[in-house]
């Protein structure tokens, strides 16, 4: 270790500084009143719409059509490994893709330039938080590595209703196993935005400009 000296000195300073410091009593985590399942889902929908992202709730049979609609006029679409086959047709053929959509698999790994050439990406997620309208990816199967949901301009995210939890703490607790396994996380709350010029909100700076959320009713 090159900076053993700095390490030792900082630790010594800290120990001297915290000598006799009391560890405070930590109060219980405050929780909001419990909502019904339907209210949780409605809260989530409200938040997603508030972020001006697309939202649609469909039965399992309607996912395929909803995905196609959400892709809009995208031509080149990235599909991560492990995406639920039921969200896409068995063969990515002309029946489903009348306008001959180009489907990019990340196998072998797409280069940054190839990703930059894609218009959209379709993924699932690990968990979603209703109160804040936050979608969380742990980049497991069906979610792709981090760059896939970052570079293309449209992100279509398919969420099972049972993945939506009421609050931030519920989400954090649900993610603990993934984090302890070393997986990275991406939290999304709406699309890319900035308010740096005269506080005027501009949507779509570097991340995807369009987020379209499809919730599958359980």
């Amino acid at each position, binding site marked *: 270790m090159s900076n053993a000296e*700095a390490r030792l000195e900082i630790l010594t*300073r800290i120990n001297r500084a915290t000598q006799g410091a009391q560890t405070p009593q930590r109060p219980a985590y405050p929780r*909001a009143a419990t909502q019904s399942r339907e209210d949780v889902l409605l809260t989530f929908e409200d938040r997603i719409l508030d972020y001006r992202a697309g939202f649609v709730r469909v039965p399992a049979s309607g996912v395929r059509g909803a995905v196609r609609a959400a892709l809009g006029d995208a031509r080149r679409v990235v599909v991560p490994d492990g995406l639920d086959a039921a969200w896409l047709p068995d063969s990515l053929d002309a029946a489903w893709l009348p306008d001959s959509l180009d489907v990019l698999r990340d196998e072998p790994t797409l280069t*940054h330039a190839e990703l930059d050439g894609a218009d959209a990406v379709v993924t699932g997620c690990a968990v979603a938080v209703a109160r804040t309208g936050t979608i969380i990816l742990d980049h497991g199967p069906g979610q792709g*590595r981090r*760059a896939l949901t970052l570079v293309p301009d449209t992100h279509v995210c398919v969420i099972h209703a049972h993945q939506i939890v009421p609050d931030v703490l519920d989400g954090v607790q649900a993610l603990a196993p993934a984090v302890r396994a*070393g997986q990275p996380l991406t*939290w999304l709350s709406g699309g890319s935005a900035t308010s740096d010029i005269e506080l005027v909100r501009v949507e779509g700076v*570097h991340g995807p400009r369009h987020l379209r959320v499809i919730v599958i009713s359980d």
Partner: protein
Amino acid sequence: MSGLHPEQSFPQAAKAEVNNPQLRANLRKVTTTIREKRLKAVGELPHWEELRVLGAATKDEALANLSDRLLELESSVRARGGHVHWARDAAEARELVAQIARGHGVTELIKVKSITSDEIELNAALDAHGIHAIETDLAELIVQLSRDTPSHILVPAIHRNRAEIQALFNRELGDPEHLSDEPAVLAGAARRYLRQKFLTTRMAVSGANFAVADTGTVCVVESEGNGRMCLTLPEVLVSVMGIEKVLATWEDVSVFMELLPRSSTAERMNPYTSFWSGVTPGDGPQEFHLILLDNGRTDVLADEVGRQTLRCIRCSACLNVCPVYERAGGHAYGSVYPGPIGAVLTPQLLHMQDKNANTLPGASSLCGACFDACPVRIDIPQVLIYLRGEVNAGKGTTLESVAMGAMRYAMSEGWRFEGAVKLARTGQGPLVHDGQITALPGLLGGWTQSRDLNPFPPQSFREWWKKREPGGES
């Protein structure tokens, strides 16, 4: 201004700023807008006060056991394939970043907005090594291209209006199309300029909002996606974090993800947050360095009253409610940490030894709004008063302390006070112009430097009270 060291005292620096009407108008608009939005975002959570108490206790707990937490963080980051470095001061931290860049033969790197990197004056140091650091946050890019310095923690270019940014981008980004002054058009120009940089640059530098000791997870909170770009596309990532940013366990992240966005941008949640633990094979940078920075923090930690300053999560809520910040603007504080939090943090990080920084605890009306707004309940007014005492104690006997002693004597007996008021009324004659006192002599001049004073009235309350008719007004 650069780093932590103010070039002037606060009263000197504020004088120019309070006389800039454009700046004051910009600031007023921003602070009032965010203030109102924030109250709405906070009001949505009925248990906000309990969250604040928990946030404060969670940080205090980590700080009370700081060496254990940092050692745990070090070993968990290493276990995930990351490298951990320790930097006693700014110079060591800068040198570490430059070494890593040189080791990879890098002459250009991309940066996520990081106030800690501004604190250590990283960009200038890298320049001296022939390494150009490109800021990728829109506001930081504006500040960098105009060779300016940030004036707000959250919206660093808030002192610039769209016309200035339009002229800047047309000049600096060499856009073939002439850009209009529409914020969306200007943001689009930044997007085009930075896109190739994101896709091709091999190294990135970031700060860290939080780091989790037990899992080795580092976190960056942002809005634009420039953070995600820097954190995932390059091959090498270096994150510089103050040692006070460490949390004990993964579950501790929750309360801060509730407190921070609502306090800072007044959103329920910011658009993007990235968490990573060391390196992930096949995903993101395959080399990760975490630099743990002291740079005065252990001094703050050693002070029982000042210690709470280290709870700060850099949300900037205190700036937006501060009447002094609203008028003086961020540059007047002369440090990368402006506003009420800067007034307590900057002098402490400089060991209470910097003459100019030691004027910062005076930059407050002690109205207490900053304490009410602070999501981790830092009692900023308490620390301000305490630091003023520290500064004064360091001065020994001064003209000011003698004057204060005389005041104490005069005010301790009613008859002495009445006599003093009469004396002052006679003495003020030459100072009054058009019913106002605009300049006081000597030591008292500080009071009238940026405000006028009403003269003593012809009759004091005590005189009126004595003369009034019993049972009615005189």
